[in-house]
């Protein structure tokens, strides 16, 4: 009860703001100041979601979720792995850090034929886009976090005879957590965007695919139905990670 009250207090203004925007949009569309085939009325979008809930939620949502989850897990595992590698080896760091940075400057759509070449039209091409797009914040977050360990703490543990591995486990990893979670929160949002873009590059199911198909059919309600679900999913994922963060970093948040 108290939590709900607090939540409302935090977000009420934003919710009111959103509501006003929706009402404004509804008015603009209904009065034909904006053509409905470009921005649909919010009510039509809701109607469209309800009418098509079966394909949307039972077919396309699970497909996107699967790509997203596989991609996100790979990005986390790979990103953390790379960060740890860079942390332990200057050579790995100097070789790959600039490459990771530069990989962010290449517009992904330009690389789509390469994905097709490597992965064909399997789920892996979407996973690849997801990974590529969400990899960076995880690497940076984890690496910066690992490096943030105070020299004095390390000396204290070494004075007790700790090996490098036990310093890593007992000090570096917990120290890296806050920064790792900052990266993770960015990455989970990007991963969802990545899965969507991946589907645009060729897919046969998924919300991104759905929105593109609807766009091809000039059905703007359908496009926005998919976008709405994607956005809500993104908010949910972000909230989920924030929640896990609060749990794991309890020591940071109890005050």
């Amino acid at each position: 009860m108290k939590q709900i009250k607090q939540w409302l207090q935090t977000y009420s203004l934003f919710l009111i703001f959103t509501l006003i925007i929706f009402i404004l949009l509804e008015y603009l569309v209904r009065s034909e100041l904006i053509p409905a085939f470009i921005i649909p009325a919010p009510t039509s979008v809701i109607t469209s979601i309800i009418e098509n809930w079966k394909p949307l939620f039972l077919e396309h949502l699970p497909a996107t979720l699967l790509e997203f989850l596989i991609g996100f897990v790979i990005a986390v595992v790979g990103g953390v792995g790379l960060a740890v590698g860079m942390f332990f080896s200057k050579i790995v760091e100097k070789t790959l850090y600039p490459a990771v940075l530069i990989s962010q400057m290449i517009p992904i759509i330009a690389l789509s034929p390469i994905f097709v070449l490597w992965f064909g039209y399997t789920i892996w091409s979407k996973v690849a886009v997801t990974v590529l797009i969400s990899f960076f914040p995880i690497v940076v977050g984890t690496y910066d976090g690992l490096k943030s360990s105070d020299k004095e703490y390390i000396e204290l543990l070494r004075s007790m005879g700790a090996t490098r591995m036990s310093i890593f486990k007992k000090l570096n990893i917990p120290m890296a957590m806050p920064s790792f979670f900052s990266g993770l929160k960015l990455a989970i949002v990007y991963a969802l965007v990545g899965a969507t873009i991946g589907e645009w590059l060729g897919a046969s199911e998924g919300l991104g695919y759905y929105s593109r198909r609807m766009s091809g059919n000039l059905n703007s309600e359908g496009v926005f139905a998919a976008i709405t679900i994607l956005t809500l999913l993104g908010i949910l994922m972000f909230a989920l990670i924030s929640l896990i963060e609060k749990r794991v970093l309890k020591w940071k948040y109890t005050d």
Partner: protein
Amino acid sequence: MTLVLKNVSYTFRNEANQKNKVISDLNMEVRNGDFVSLIGKSGTGKSTILKLITGLLKQDEGEILINGKAITLGDVGYMPQRDLLLPWRTIIENIMIASEIQKDLQITKDEARSWLDRVGLLAYENALPDQLSGGMRQRAAFLRALLTGKDLLLLDEPFGALDALTKKDMQTWLLSIWQELNKTILFITHDLEEACFLSDRILLLHLDKTLDDIPVNLSRPRHPEMLHEMELITLRHNLEKRIAHETN
């Protein structure tokens, strides 16, 4: 337990490869059960000596021996000025960390708990360090050094960050623990009164890298009243004069 430093030298090198010979031909000895304070102006190399004894730094020349054997990492209990409690661990987890690191060190949770009880922290067993006051944190940090199980404890300005009143309490507390356990303590401080009050011997490190060994002729056990005895006051006065003429 005897700690012996023989002709120890140590030089810092910076990036530009400039050398700074901080410790030069140093000889000292700390015997079993001693409470020895190490004093000297800032930058004379007190902390460096402690790091050499822990093994965190490796001397360029000379020997550092405990019971006749060259020291290695993990041979002593070390407590730096900042408490350095890991903020994500509860107090009991913090003080037991050495037993997680050293396999041959077996300390049960019950033992740790009885220690917490002894220093008045049992109620905070499962609290996080942030929830404790400065004095409490310092006591926990001391327990952590104690629970390494080593005979020799190196304390680098452990009470430097505490306010004067809390510091007084901590000094009395430290003395009582030390007496009970028959530990050997090498103690760095800037506070001459503290050095006089606590120690059997005071080692005074000069800027020219020489070391004076000054005995403290106060009876044991010490109690706060002694702070106002002429003997302590004169000794402190004396030390002050010896240091004051040095220029940085």
